[in-house]
């Protein structure tokens, strides 16, 4: 009888330990999955950032002072060419009745050329501002699309982490079940002596014959509020404490 009780108790303890082990394994699986998902999200965000960086770098480079000067010059040259084209067009007015002296003609032409060059330079700044504004807007659109993708992807992480929390739930459930079985086995181990002793005095005599005849035990059995029909289960803390009192 005592051997069976010990085996049941040991089996219960083993099952409980195995259950705890399974639960820990499940928790580890959950943690790993969450770590992997966070790492994957960080990696994805880094990849998106790498896609955005050349756009920003290119726009910054195009906005630099040397590029701006080149852009201003280019726009100025383009405007001056337009001035010259329009200047060369015939005005279709016919010969003026008031003749203009060569000196005056040259003076007018010189003044017009100077004015055109100066105005073209000024227009170059406007052209550069226009180009810069368009570049910024186009870069903004490209970055906006990448941001949308990044936001969209990042918004999934909480869902994934929530999902991950139940990733090891199978292991946890199995562990809990095994722990519960282990507890039951432990309880069964504890209750088994009482069940066996309930058959009557023969068992009591048997208990006495097995050495449970010490004065302390007999006194304990006599004074116990719960009728003792067998030897105390010393694995039961309550019974052990009662026994120790005697």
């Amino acid at each position, binding site marked *: 009888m005592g051997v069976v009780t010990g085996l049941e108790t040991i089996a219960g303890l083993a099952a409980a330990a195995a259950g705890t082990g399974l639960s820990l394994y499940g928790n580890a699986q959950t943690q790993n999955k969450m770590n992997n998902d966070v790492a994957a999200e960080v990696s994805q965000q880094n990849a998106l950032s790498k896609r955005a960086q050349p756009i920003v770098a290119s726009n910054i480079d195009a906005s630099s002072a040397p590029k701006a000067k080149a852009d201003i010059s280019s726009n100025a040259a383009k405007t001056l060419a337009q001035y010259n084209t329009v200047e060369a067009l015939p005005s279709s*007015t016919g010969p003026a009745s*008031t003749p203009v002296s060569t000196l005056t003609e040259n003076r007018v032409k010189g003044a017009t050329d100077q004015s055109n060059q100066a105005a073209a330079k000024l227009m170059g700044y406007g*052209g550069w501002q226009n180009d810069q504004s368009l570049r910024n807007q186009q870069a903004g659109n490209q970055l906006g699309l990448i941001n949308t993708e990044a936001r969209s992807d990042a918004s999934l992480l909480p869902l994934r982490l929530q999902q991950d929390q139940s990733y090891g739930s199978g292991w946890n459930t199995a562990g809990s079940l095994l722990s519960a079985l282990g507890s039951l086995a432990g309880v069964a181990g504890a209750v088994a002596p009482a069940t066996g002793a309930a058959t009557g005095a023969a068992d009591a005599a048997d208990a006495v014959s097995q050495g449970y005849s010490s004065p302390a035990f007999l006194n304990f059995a006599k004074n116990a509020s719960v009728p003792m029909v067998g030897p105390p289960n010393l694995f039961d803390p309550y019974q052990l404490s009662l026994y120790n009192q005697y």
Partner: protein
Amino acid sequence: MGLGGGSNAADAQAAQQAAQLAGVKKGVAGIDTAFAGFNPQFYNQRAQDYTAYALPQLNQQYRQTGQQLDYSLADKGLSNSSAGSTARGALDQNYALKKQGVVDTATQQSQQLQQQVQGQKNALIGEVQSASDPAGVASQAIGTAAGFQAPNTFAPLGQMFGDFSNVYLANQYANAVAPYMNQNPLLSRVPTTGMNSSAISNYTLN
């Protein structure tokens, strides 16, 4: 592992977002296609169109102002004088400045159109990103792009040589009248700006 659990809500959400993202990319590609015609050549053409529209009007005004100047100079017997040559030169220089202004206006209008087109494109791309139907926004982009390509209506050029006429010719008249005004104190209060030559002649004859 076989005992791994969990719902597929995140997967479903990911699939939905992936589909939406694909829709956004498709929508943006549609917008790019619809706006593909707005290239530098298009905007150069827009500037040239304005120049072609405005220059004939400017030329006509130049011709009319030149005729007024010629009549005025001839009236004073200054047609073949250095003063006449200088006056004509001043008009020509003013004409050159006005042509410069036409080119500048053409450029500015072209740049404004560029900004408007880009702004509309930005708005459509923004809509695509927030719309549940990116393809529908892309279709809308085609209509918007076509709207920009439709011909604009332009106001007439206005009086381009008004300043020259008011200032230069009035000064000419004032200079012509000034000697008589000095001789006759009664004429010292006579306004000359905006008067025609016959009116001034009447004053001087009186």
